[in-house]
């Protein structure tokens, strides 16, 4: 009961924040809403017994990605002309499409039969994640690390002034 209330609370706030993030005309506000969304999702992760991911979500999304976005917004200040709106010409079609997508996906997901398994999360979940990353999933892990390196180099190459 408490869990449900908590979920509804968090989910509602998160969704409102998400709406704010896509609706806000001021980009900086949008970014702050985005931070709120990330925080809400971190809470949801913790509700789902994934503490590690919850905290990692805060470190990576708020600590790195959102800060980066805010930084970029600050660098490109006053980029938006005052006269230009936040949306492009197709926004109503996009809205319809998004609503349609939501309904369709929701319908499909609710229709799908899932085999529920109720079990407790292993006590050494973090250990298992770590071992999985350097064991079963070592190749994707290495690929991801190379991807990050390449992204780093690529970002520097793109952003440097010639």
């Amino acid at each position, binding site marked *: 009961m*408490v869990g449900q209330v908590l979920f509804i609370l968090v*989910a509602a706030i*998160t*969704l409102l924040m*998400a*709406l704010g*993030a*896509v609706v806000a005309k001021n*980009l900086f506000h*949008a*970014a702050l809403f*985005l931070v709120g969304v990330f925080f809400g*999702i971190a809470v*949801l992760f913790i509700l*789902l*017994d*994934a503490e*590690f*991911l919850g905290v*990692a*979500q805060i470190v*990576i*999304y708020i600590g790195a*990605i959102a800060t*980066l*976005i805010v930084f970029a917004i600050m660098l*490109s200040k006053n*980029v*938006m002309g005052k006269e230009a709106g*936040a*949306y*492009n*010409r*197709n*926004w109503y079609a*996009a809205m319809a*499409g*998004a*609503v349609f997508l*939501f309904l369709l*996906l*929701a319908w499909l*997901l609710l229709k799908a039969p*899932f085999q*529920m*398994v*109720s079990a*407790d999360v*292993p006590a050494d*979940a973090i250990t*298992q994640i770590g071992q*999985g990353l350097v064991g079963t*999933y070592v190749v994707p892990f290495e690929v991801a690390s190379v*991807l*990050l390196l390449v*992204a780093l180099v*690529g*970002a520097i190459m*793109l*952003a440097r002034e010639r």
Partner: protein
Amino acid sequence: MTVPLSWYLIFATALFSIGFFGVLARRNAIAVLMGVELMLNAVNVNLVAFWRYLTPTDLSGQIFVVFVFAVAAAEAAVGLALMISIYRTRKSINVDELNELKL
């Protein structure tokens, strides 16, 4: 476990749709990027929820989320660097002015 799985799925779907709307409709490239981040987060929520409700003893779901983190970080870095370089050449990062794909 009092919250049903479907609630999480609906939540993730809504988040995904909102993010997708942002991607489709926003004019500013950074805002588009933010929409993409929302979509990725929606996927993460789904992954974790499926893990918790369907295979709680196998941590693969969480590991996938870690990979999504890595991809999202890389995407944000490259995306923002691209935006900065576009801004430098065009003095604008409005997506609807970027129509070089059209001949």
